[in-house]
């Protein structure tokens, strides 16, 4: 105090800074989530929250545990690489409670042409038909079995 005439003022300024800095540190510790910075400049727990989203598509492995007979027929035919839910739709709910949630009935008139209607941009090697001319209005299922579509290739499924 003897060296500076008004040393008390300086002390108060320092005190204000120290108080402000401590308040900042305390608030930051309280408000920033604990997982922030765990892996980078983001909230680490966000990863787990996104991973906790429920699934809608059960996956063909799940389908095949209960329907191995259909899987055998399908995997022996032209549609071997087509997964069940590609046509049947998302059925994780059906897999969870098979009796309560029934899969919807499918309409081959919509499903087959989705992939097989002729389109100039489709790969030339992919089997395509002009549906109107091809079947003369008959549903595809009259001749083709969807699980093994080559005519005469498999038993009716």
């Amino acid at each position, binding site marked *: 105090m003897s060296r500076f005439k008004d040393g008390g003022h300086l002390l108060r300024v320092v005190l204000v800074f120290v108080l402000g800095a401590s308040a900042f540190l305390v608030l930051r510790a*309280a408000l920033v*989530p*604990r*997982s*922030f910075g765990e*892996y*980078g*400049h*983001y*909230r680490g*727990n*966000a*990863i*787990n*929250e*996104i*991973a*906790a*989203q*429920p*699934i*809608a*598509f059960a*996956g*063909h492995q799940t389908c095949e545990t209960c329907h191995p007979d259909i899987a055998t027929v399908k995997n022996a035919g032209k*549609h071997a*690489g*087509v*997964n069940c*839910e*590609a*046509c049947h*739709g*998302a059925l994780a709910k059906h897999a969870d409670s098979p009796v309560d949630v029934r899969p919807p009935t499918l309409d081959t008139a919509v499903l087959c042409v*989705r*992939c097989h*209607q*002729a*389109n*100039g*941009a*489709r*790969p030339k090697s*992919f089997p395509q038909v002009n549906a109107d001319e091809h079947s003369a209005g008959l549903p595809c299922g009259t001749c083709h079995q969807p699980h093994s579509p080559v005519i005469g290739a498999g038993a009716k499924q």
Partner: protein
Amino acid sequence: MNLTRRHFLILLPAAAVAWEAVLAGTPETSPNYAMTEHWWGMLVDISKCIGCGNCVRACATENDVPDGYFRTWVERYHISDYDLTNPVVDSPDGGKEGFPAMLESGGKNFFVPKMCNHCADSPCTQVCPVGATFITPDGVVLVDKKYCIGCRYCIQACPYGCRYLNPKTQTADKCTLCYHRITQGLTTACCEACPTGARQLADLKNPNDPIHEFVRTHDVQVLKPYMATGAKLFYNDLDGSVR
């Protein structure tokens, strides 16, 4: 009940413990999954895509994507024989309900499925001012919707146009590479629904993943390589005119 100062002081530690739980958030959902053992990407084989729109519908179902917004979509390219650099591109409703017959005849025609490239050095994560979007240690670009302030910087920054502002949450949204599925050992919804195998989920850190053999034996490219984004959406048979 009157809360006295004594009671308040006694309750403080309990509140502190509870707040700790709030900050800690949700627990690990897949305990058997180790992030450091994976580096995810995807392979798209254009020569196999038939433009059926299954991937677009599957993605919307799996991830509750609002109508008119897309985490993945399919474009149809028509390249005339006389103008190779200016393709005609259409994508009605993102290809969700398939594609009508071609209007143009001749030329080169093909489908290009698009989605987030899960870039290793992504522009979208670099521009986020609040740390709401990031790349996980296993290589998936995600959005923390609790942190996102909806400023749209990332939507402008993405060179591939893969982000949108979710009208329900007013936060940035995008493909998560079905993070909730791949951490459980499942493939993504789009790959599950693809009837021709044009899309394949790829784990670049797994030496047994078929992608390594595929890349060795095919001409594989990424979109906009000159932007040095470290894109991990690999295309086979990609025409040079695709943007």
